[in-house]
């Protein structure tokens, strides 16, 4: 056997492995299709009496659109109902952070008719020209929005986006094993003999985790001051040995299953997890936390047909009953005033869903970091690599 020849063969093999390695498997779920079950509820659209701009050509809505959304954020039944009502099929694809959503759109991803970015990401996407202006004629149900959501600071007048759901970021905990955490200190000052030491997670999200550290230190969560950010970074590194990991996708399930006792996360996720374990509870610590609004928008890469179908879907979500259905599924507060009529009193008065005024005033929006973006990410790399 010629050794040189076989070596050459092996080199080729190894190189193909190199290609394989470079391709790598991205954990990306396939677009899922909801099971069929008819339950049509469609209120006929009322055209607003505005002077309609001369439309160049009649656009037919796309037969099939893809919604790019956070995981488990929408009742799959809604797709079935919408398809019954309009004949448009909605498929879903998921992302797990605003940064991931932004990166995919910046990378040229197409085929999405609808996306669900949070407030600060809407600002960035507007600036980067990634969003299409909504045609309000196609969304008459905009009138159902609460007044404060018609004039959100990042997009006054809902020019590009319609608020989808809103919520807060705080701490979820296992109430039978841990007392209600009064302060972010439970995470940042955890001692090895605390029962939750090594049994808690923080969000795998630079801005959210820095916000938690900054609010605990008494700084503005949108600070761009390097010294304050360094201090927050040191705090995050100090807390790391007490963490089981950084997790933005399954943090609530891990508390419900008893694997972890505490988690930094989003309120609705914990409330949904109560179905598996009634002892899961949620609190915004006394120092405050993050408040956010997720929005449904049409990316500028959508075709006119996709955009029209997308706007029809937005309009459908804004219906009173559908809005209520959405909140009942994901346990997040609805920006839809008309939906409240269909929601339980218990839900509407739950302080974990609708924070009382004294909590609300301690909550802050995350704003785009602009030039400080790379500083945030560099410091986050330091935390994660430490």
């Amino acid at each position, binding site marked *: 056997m010629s050794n040189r020849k076989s070596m050459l063969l092996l080199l080729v093999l190894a190189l193909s492995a190199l290609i394989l390695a470079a391709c790598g498997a991205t954990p990306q779920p396939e677009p899922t299709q909801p099971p069929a079950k008819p339950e049509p509820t469609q209120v006929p659209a009322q055209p607003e009496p505005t002077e309609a701009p001369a439309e160049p050509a009649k656009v037919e809505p796309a037969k099939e659109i893809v919604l790019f959304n956070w995981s488990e954020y929408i009742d799959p039944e809604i797709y079935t109902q919408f398809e019954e009502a309009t004949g448009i099929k909605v498929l879903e694809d998921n992302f797990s952070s605003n940064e991931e959503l932004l990166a995919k759109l910046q990378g040229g991803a197409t085929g999405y008719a609808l996306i669900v970015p949070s407030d600060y990401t809407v600002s960035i996407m507007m600036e980067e020209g990634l969003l299409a202006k909504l045609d309000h004629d196609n969304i008459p149900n905009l009138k159902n929005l609460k007044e404060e959501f018609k004039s959100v600071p990042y997009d006054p007048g809902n020019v590009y986006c319609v608020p989808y759901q809103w919520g807060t970021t705080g701490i979820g905990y296992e109430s039978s094993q841990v007392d209600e955490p009064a302060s972010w200190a439970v995470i940042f000052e955890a001692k090895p003999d605390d029962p939750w030491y090594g049994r808690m997670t923080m969000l795998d999200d630079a801005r959210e985790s820095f916000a938690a550290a900054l609010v605990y230190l008494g700084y503005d969560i949108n600070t761009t001051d390097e010294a304050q950010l360094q201090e927050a970074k040191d705090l995050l590194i100090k807390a790391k040995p007490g963490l089981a990991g950084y997790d933005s996708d399954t943090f609530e399930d891990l508390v419900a299953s008893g694997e972890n006792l505490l988690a930094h996360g989003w309120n609705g996720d914990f409330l949904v997890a109560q179905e598996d374990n009634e002892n899961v509870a949620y609190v915004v610590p006394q120092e405050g936390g993050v408040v956010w609004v997720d929005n449904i928008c049409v990316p500028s890469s959508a075709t006119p047909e996709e955009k029209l179908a997308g706007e029809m879907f937005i309009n459908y979500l804004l219906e009173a009953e559908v809005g209520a259905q959405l909140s009942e599924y994901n346990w997040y507060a609805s920006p839809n005033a008309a939906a409240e009529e269909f929601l339980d009193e218990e839900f509407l008065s739950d302080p974990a869903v609708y924070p009382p005024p004294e909590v609300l005033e301690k909550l802050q929006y995350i704003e785009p970091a602009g030039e400080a973006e790379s500083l945030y*990410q560099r410091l986050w*790399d330091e935390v994660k690599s430490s």
Partner: protein
Amino acid sequence: MEQVLRRNPALRGWLLVLPAAVFLIIFFMIPLLIVFVYSFLERGTYGGVIWQFTLENLARTFDPLYFSTFLRSVYIAILTTLISLLLGYPLAYFITTRPAHQRNLYVLALMIPFWTNFLIRTYAWLTLLRTHTGLINVSLTSLGIIEKPLPLFGNDFAIVLGLVYGWLPVMVLPIYAALERLDKSLIEAAQDLYASGAQVFRRVIWPLSLPGVVAGSMLVFIPSLGAFVTPAILGGGKSLMIGNIISNQFLAAHDWPFGSALSMLMMIVMLLATLIYFRWALREGVQP
């Protein structure tokens, strides 16, 4: 047309290679070129690149923060390769000693895990390894064998375990192929010349199986170094490898040029490691 082809064997060869060549140029060379070019450009604030030449990204790859993660990844990849070799070699040898019809069954058994998606298999490990609800720790603590759960998850141990599990079959297969081709009369000849068992292995079997060992090692080392699913899941997002840092540059930090530069560094190191290893193996293999 047919006549032209008949008269030009060289042309025939080129035509045969054309489809694969076009495929590789479009889907391999061009993306690689983009990565190369991007690594010399400046970042856009929220992703994308600004067409301005800079060497800063390449300089930053030697920043201790990233370089230490890189070295740690090399360490994890080497460890994974060594463990796979230690486990895989005896297994491959065992298979070659079975009767011919059984061998194929064993090889098939090795391939079966590949029928299930790697991501799902990695998640399955979570069920076993979780610190407080994982099967292993729950069993051991409820049997009273251990008091405190073992740290099986969210650390380098879990990552190396996941990688060895994932890549062991690609270590075994080439070694098996090399051992199976080995001329048994050479072993008999060595024994006739009073070589001890250890000597037969060291002087005959090992050198002749070396091509398989080299191929298997490369097939394990390269994907382990670039791994990113395994550390992301079994490392709990706490223990990072260079693959995670690179994916973060694209998916979280909006820094495409730096992600590209890190990828280039990784590819260069892989290429160098491959070349050095082959040279060494070639020298070893040629000597009796």
